[in-house]
């Protein structure tokens, strides 16, 4: 799938939180039309890496290129404007707002009345209703209900639905199948593959190497803030990759002692 010109290119990325070294010299390429699995244990730096990609964190050192251009300013607003949709694990929904308001948070549709821009509730409602129905939320949940009332799976569905609805060039999914039932999980995985087939870049983060091996074209493994493996799923089996993760863990333990 690789063409000469990666959609996202990360070069020698370092990130510190205070004195904590969260990302260590990470370099990785992502291409359009590719589904990449990003795998690693807790604290490996997966989420931190994608938080740089979607503009939440600013790297301490190193470069990020999007579509061949060096990214100079990091903000989620810019990432979203560029077409990077992210399904965050713990954030992304405001409990106190209705589903419709959450759905369009940051990109509210506007309707001008005497020149003053007001929210276009009709569109907000109809679109979000369509999506929550498609994702099979309970029938008594309406687009005007506050997110607070939703279950974990329902929240995840709203987030995924939103990302799919606004899909543009990149969809990043951080542990998208957490809190989901088996059926919902399959649905999400199918969606990820569909998106890829539409020519989007999909970055799929998970613990579960076996699950992602089935879906992904390529797997990137991280450990302790470093990239320790980057291989296509054709070249390595899931078992081999699992061994790499285990080795990586041991390696770190050795280094620590």
């Amino acid at each position, binding site marked *: 799938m690789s063409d000469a010109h990666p959609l996202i290119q990360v070069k020698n990325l370092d990130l510190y*939180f*205070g*004195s*904590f070294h969260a990302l260590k010299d990470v370099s990785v390429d992502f291409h359009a039309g590719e589904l990449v699995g990003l795998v690693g244990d807790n604290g490996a730096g997966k989420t931190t890496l994608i938080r740089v990609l979607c503009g939440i964190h600013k790297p301490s050192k190193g470069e990020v290129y999007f579509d061949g251009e060096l990214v100079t300013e990091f903000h989620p607003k810019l990432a979203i404007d560029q077409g990077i949709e992210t399904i965050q694990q713990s954030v992304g929904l405001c409990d106190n707002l209705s589903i419709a308001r959450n759905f369009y948070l940051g990109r509210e549709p506007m309707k001008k009345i005497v020149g003053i821009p007001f929210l276009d509730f009709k569109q907000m409602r109809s679109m979000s209703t369509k999506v929550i129905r498609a994702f099979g939320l309970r029938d008594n949940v309406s687009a005007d209900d506050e997110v607070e009332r939703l279950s974990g799976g329902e929240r995840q569905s709203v987030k995924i639905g939103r990302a799919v609805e606004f899909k543009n060039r990149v969809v990043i999914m951080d542990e998208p199948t957490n809190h989901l039932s088996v059926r919902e999980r399959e649905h999400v995985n199918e969606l990820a593959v569909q998106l890829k087939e539409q020519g989007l870049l999909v970055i799929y983060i998970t613990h579960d190497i076996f699950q992602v091996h089935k879906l992904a074209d390529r797997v990137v493994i991280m450990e302790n803030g470093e990239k320790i493996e980057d291989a296509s799923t054709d070249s390595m089996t899931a078992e081999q990759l699992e061994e790499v993760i285990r080795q990586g863990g041991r390696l770190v333990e050795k280094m620590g002692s």
Partner: protein
Amino acid sequence: MTSTRQLAKSAGFGSVVGVALMLTAFTLIDFSGWWTARTISNVVHFSSILALIAMGQALVIISKEIDLSVGSVYGLTGIAFITFEHSLGVPGAVIAALAIAAVCGLLQGLAVVRGGLPSMIVTLGGLFTFRGIIYVWTGGSVRNFSEAARENWLTKLFGGEVFGIEAAVLWMLLMLAILSVVLKFTRFGNHLLATGGASDSAESRGVRIDRVKIITFVMCSVMAGFAGIVTLADQPQTHVTIGDLLELEAISAAVIGGCLLSGGRGSLIGAVLGAFIVTSFRYELIALGAPSSWFITFVGVVLIVAIIFNQKLARWAGHNV
């Protein structure tokens, strides 16, 4: 670098820097006889009283709450001490007055914890209520100590002098030592830090955060009350305005001393130094002949600078605040 960072990890480090800077500045531009025994003893004396209140406030801030009522509690306890002396004698009055302070703290703690209300609102209510009780109780003026009471050994113990050092200073140092031990070396101290730092995690590890918070409010009120008694044992002429606006100075001192309001971090010695800074600046401003209303402005500026500095320092030292 690393060792400085290590030092900066302690919350009170900023105030140490502050005191060092301040003393240097006062030495270099010494218009006013800063380094005289009399000035220092004046400033240290009042700093001690403020520090007693500020330490209690620091504990509450560490538990991630705030107590706006300390000025009123300070006043109410002091006035109770003087008023009860006529019927209960000095020892009885001390106990009764401290009991009243404890009840103030207990009621507020209960309202915060059991009522689930923000401590700002509860203690704001306390600020008004306790001040109002003073007004209602005294009717506008506060009786004085009898001659006998002024000579009582307990009065002397709280308000007298030892080797030329005001008792208030020694009491402050004693309380600083006790509370530091409690905070650092006891189970309660550990629970307090955990409650303020991450109440969910603390609760999941079996810490009774409700109790910890209530006890902290009681401690804060008792400290404020104790400061009131120490003040009045030394100088029994007082007025119903006793403690007015002292909560602002106490909070300022605690914050200057490194309490960050994000909970779980704070320093008792920092609060003491913070009180010293606030009081010293008052002296210096008066000495420089600035109009006295500038003092309020100045404390405001110091407060803002201090919180920003302390926060930056804590982040630089690697704390996640």
